[in-house]
């Protein structure tokens, strides 16, 4: 997969304009542009100065070698993804999650050859692979930690390193803040409590302040580390405020330009339909005026969205508390690590569904951890569907006509390759059931309409139609999966044997 990169056609983003990322990422970029290799390349003629210089918007057409350089950095940074995938799959293997012998290898390949990452990182240009690799490392650490009882030293170390890893990831990209409640509650209950046996054989949990201090120190150190250089500037408060406003731009609107397929897209879509119906409906004008107050639906403010998101996260918080509690008992029904992965998937799905101004790529945060449990027969079909809808939503990112065959065949070869691979590890007809086939046919129809029929028939009129259709299709599919994942989450935590 590494070689499938140099598609010098799409426009890159020079580092100078990537300023809506947290400080950690800024330092990553700094390291990319100020290291011996880059300096050497700059000294030789291969890489021109213009590539890394601050440029005005009018003149930022990158040269070929510049594009090549940037793409190579993405490929090199993908090493983190490879390492993370390897680490997490081997952790899951230790857990006994995989029954089939070739499942770990298949899972590894599914993670690293994910079409979404390929489209986003290597064609659209982003560093998602690296971030998700760090997330996978963090998950892998927690899974390793969950193997043993919570009071063992090895388990504590794994949990601490997992938390540190996540904190560092958060300082690189704030998209992952949606996972914070899960990490917080799970680690608080599992790591910061010590179990002591009672007289009648039960278990009493006692809060340990020293453990909390340890955890807080490690986490904050790795999270706040990148902020320190900004704090020692002349105007620390202004710097932080500036960073925060860049990170959380609430003035950009509820949905992203491309309408990521989430709940808000569906909400707005229904609102528009209602408005359209209202306009056509032969109603008395008085009634119309009354209805106009709520139709089209009011656009929720960021505050309301935040509240919705918190509500959406309540199940995972509750289950994380419960799991953190019963993981202290000896008689574990299922492993807390497995729950944790489902928790990550659910949290990211909730964030994607309810977040403010969500980008389509946020779905990758759900898909990639889901891959780790895809080889389990219970989850295979769901993983397949989630990928099917999620990646379909990413296809409009490649909008040029000459990228049409590319994205089509990336999608098709992924579908068949994954179907073959999963059937071998999870048994026959776990994927590509009747429902999946119907979904694929429907997606195919939508795709043909938006890529071929629409431009040929409508031309420039109804330009919003293809994108809206895509996002509505994806949002319906993903809401269905969201529901399924909620059910899975509630089941996976098991029943508490703690009293």
């Amino acid at each position, binding site marked *: 997969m590494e070689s499938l990169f140099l598609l010098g056609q799409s426009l890159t983003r020079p580092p100078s304009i990537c300023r809506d990322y947290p400080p950690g990422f800024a330092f990553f970029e700094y390291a990319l542009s100020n290291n011996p290799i880059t300096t050497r390349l700059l000294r030789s003629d291969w890489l021109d100065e213009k590539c890394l210089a601050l440029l005005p918007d009018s003149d930022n057409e990158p040269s070929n070698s510049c594009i090549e350089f940037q793409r190579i950095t993405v490929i090199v940074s993908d090493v983190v993804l490879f390492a993370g995938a390897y680490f997490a799959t081997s952790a899951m293997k230790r857990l006994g999650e995989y029954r089939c012998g070739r499942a770990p290898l298949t899972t590894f390949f599914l993670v690293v050859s994910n079409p979404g990452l390929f489209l986003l990182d290597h064609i659209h240009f982003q560093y998602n692979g690296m971030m998700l690799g760090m997330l996978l490392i963090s998950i892998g650490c927690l899974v390793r930690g969950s193997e043993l009882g919570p009071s063992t030293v090895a388990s504590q170390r794994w949990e601490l390193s997992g938390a540190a890893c996540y904190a560092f990831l958060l300082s690189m990209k704030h998209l992952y803040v949606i996972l914070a409640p899960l990490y917080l509650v799970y680690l608080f209950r599992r790591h910061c409590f010590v179990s002591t046996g009672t007289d009648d054989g039960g278990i009493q949990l006692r809060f340990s302040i020293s453990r909390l201090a340890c955890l807080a120190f490690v986490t904050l150190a790795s999270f706040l580390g990148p902020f320190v250089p900004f704090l020692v500037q002349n105007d620390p408060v202004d710097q932080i405020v500036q960073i925060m406003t860049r990170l959380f731009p609430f003035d950009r609107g509820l949905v992203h330009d491309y309408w990521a397929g989430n709940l808000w897209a569906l909400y707005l879509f229904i609102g528009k339909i209602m408005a359209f119906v209202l306009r056509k409906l032969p109603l008395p004008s008085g009634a119309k005026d009354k209805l106009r107050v709520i139709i089209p639906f009011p656009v929720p403010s960021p505050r309301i969205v935040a509240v919705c998101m918190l509500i959406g996260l309540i199940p995972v918080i509750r289950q994380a508390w419960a799991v953190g509690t019963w993981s202290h008992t000896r008689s574990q029904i299922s492993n807390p690590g497995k729950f944790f992965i489902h928790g990550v998937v659910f949290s990211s799905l909730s964030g994607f569904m309810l977040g403010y101004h969500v980008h389509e790529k946020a779905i990758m945060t759900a898909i990639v951890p889901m891959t780790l449990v895809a080889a389990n027969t219970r989850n295979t079909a769901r993983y397949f569907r989630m990928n099917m809808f999620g990646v379909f939503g990413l296809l409009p990112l490649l*909008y040029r006509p*000459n990228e049409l*065959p*590319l994205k089509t065949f*990336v999608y098709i070869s992924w579908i068949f390759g994954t179907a*073959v691979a999963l*059937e071998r590890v999870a048994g*026959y007809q776990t994927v590509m059931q009747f429902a999946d086939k119907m979904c694929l046919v429907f997606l195919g129809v939508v795709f043909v309409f938006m890529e071929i029929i629409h*431009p040929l028939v409508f031309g420039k009129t109804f330009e919003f139609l293809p994108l809206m259709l895509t996002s509505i299709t994806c949002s319906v599919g993903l809401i269905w999966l969201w529901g399924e994942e909620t059910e899975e989450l509630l089941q996976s935590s098991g029943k508490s044997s703690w009293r």
Partner: protein
Amino acid sequence: MRALAAATFSFAILLRIIIGFHPHSGQDDYQGPTVGIASNPVKYGGDYEAQRHWMEVTLHLPISEWYYHDLQYWGLDYPPLTAYVSWACGWVAHNVGSRFDGNRPPDTCAVADGEECSETPGSSDGLVELKDLVALNSSRWGFEGRAGKMYMRITVLVLDICVYMTAVWTIAKRLVPPTNDEASMPGYFTTSQQQRTWLVLTALCQPAIVLIDHGHFQYNTVSLGLALWSFHYMTLEDSRTTSFYGPVIGSVLFSLALNFKQMELYHAPAVFAYLLGRCFRHGSERRTIGVQTTIKFFSLGVAVMWQGMFFRLSSVYHDSMYLKSCRKVANIWCALSVKPFSIRNRIPQDMLPIAALGLTLLLILPICGMLFRAGERKQSVGDDLKILLWGASGTALAFFLASFQVHEKGILIALAPLSMLALDAPRFVSFFSVVATWSLWPLLVIDQLQSPYFCSIMIYTCIESLMKVQIQSTDNDECIIKFLAPVSVVVMIVLHLLEFLVDPPQSLPDLYPVLWSIAGCGLFSLLYLMILAAVWALLQQQDYHKIRKGGRNTVGVPAALAMSLLLLSMPEPIAPLVVMMSRTKGSKLNAHAFESVPDLELTPSLLSRAAEPLPWEVARAKEKTPVLDLSSARDLSSTLSLAEGAAEEGRSDENPSREFLEPWMDGTLWKSTELALSSLGIDTRQALDRAPQLLRLPTEQVVQAAAFVLDFCNSSTKLIRLDPTLLCYDVLDLEHGLGQYLPNMMFRGNATQAAVSVRTQLALSPTMALAVVKMGIDGGMEERRVSRALGSAGQASGKATQTIVHETGRTYRGFKKTKDGKSSLG
């Protein structure tokens, strides 16, 4: 299975699409790092521009002008089929473009590459460009817009899918035929499915072919695919209809391939030789003369075409093109024109083409001869195709090495048939394709295809090594390649590094291309020899198969021969296993004979014959009666003779009385024996005829003996048929004789070897085998008798021993006397 095939093909297509995003030959008129942006006043760009230009020419001009129009600017120099295909592509482009001509915006910026135009998602403006792409004359000098390039790439891709991929799929299905269990177990992939998938994947991801067609831009896959289709049809199963139509359709397809690209001539000698051989093939069914003449006609047509083209090409050898393109190619003439040899100065210019012709003929002759033999004989189906594939790539490689005016891309002709043989010789094929791609490097540098070069080689190596992990293949002639491959890969990498790091010295600016050419030439020569060896081995193997196949047709006897031959070639531990397996199979096969045994008529003569004592019975009886009471004997010689005589007389006296007493006389014993024997596949009547004593021997004993003999002879009844008296022996005697005495006497105690050699002997000369077996049994019985006798005799007195010694000495002297007399007589 469908999902597996779809995944394979879509991956191959994806690879092609991705490589298609890279620069094509002569993009922006870039002509390589030494030349840079060329400012040739006559021509622009490379093969891409040529193909585009042909579309334009064929679309807008009448047929009569196609081959005459402005030859200076990429004149059409491919055979007519290419021109027709160009016309079709041009026609489609023109019509699609015209459809959007109406709403063309006044100032289109679609031509400017890489610039952010007013394009919006899903915009169809780009398609207007297609009309300009094929506009006459105005489109010259580099029409390389995004949509135009996409369209050109898509034409290659579509033709590739339609012709080459289907051909690969068909041949893969031929080489790895579907087994019966494929349909019954969905979701689980059988070995044949896996093998076929890997074969298709490796064949479709051949880096050289993909890079040249989808990177450099050419339509090689069309001609290669047509050639593969023709190979498929030529070697179709030899039934009455296909033996006629197969070669005919194959010849037509091959002519089409020739008509698309004259480079297919490299395959022509192989095809010609094979078809010629087919003309002389005498099948079991009589073929009419008409069929033969038709096939001859087609094959000769191909041959004539080939020769005509060959001489036509030889007349243009003196072109300046030769001098220009020769340097970089990895063939013999280029390698030999380097300084110490500098062959071009030693041989006069006029003689060079003739020398090339002679060398080419010399190199293709052995392969053609072998292909002729392959075509001439009747063989199993898959092997014919394999031989043709090997041979075709061999001749192509011979042409590439030895003929003139060769282009680097000529190696593709050898590579395409070879890539279908990835399962037979995985190491060889993968090594060949890497070397072929590597030899294209100088060309790819000019095309700016360095990164896809490295990446596609990497992908191919990954696929190919995964294949090796997944499929344990039986690769016979690996020892050379095992040594050669790592060494030459290291050489290749070192050359790459040197080229990257060290600039060539001023005096030798062409150092690296020349090094490339020499190393490539050496490797290709070795590979040519290995192909030769492979074809030869395959031909020999077919002889071997032929014997085995004939053995299966006639029941019984030759199966034993084949089996023994196989067993001889096998290592020892496997032999007993095979014996066991074949025995179970044999007993199953003969189970049906159980019922159909008619009753036996018991005649008095038979009964009397049955009552006759067997030799070993006589001996045993003799043993039981005290043969000689040495302690009481005075006249030893008389005692001996008396004792023997008395015993014999006594038994012969008893005989008539026994006739009416024995329980076996009513035939019930024989009935059960007969049933048991016939279930083992033994002809009971014949056996009884020759060994009437079977009538009275206990069933158990006979069956044990029969089973032992069958086991010993590898379940062949041949020995029993030859001498049924073997069944009359006691199984203990048989075991001792054949299991211990015979090996001890003749095979240094190695029982397996003894059994194997008896089986072999049985196939070659059954009487000899019988003699050996008999000797073993008799000898063994004698040995046991003697040992028993010695055991009893040990108790006898020293005098008796002395007497025996004395007696023996006397006998020996007498024996010696007679022997001396005989030898003096002789």
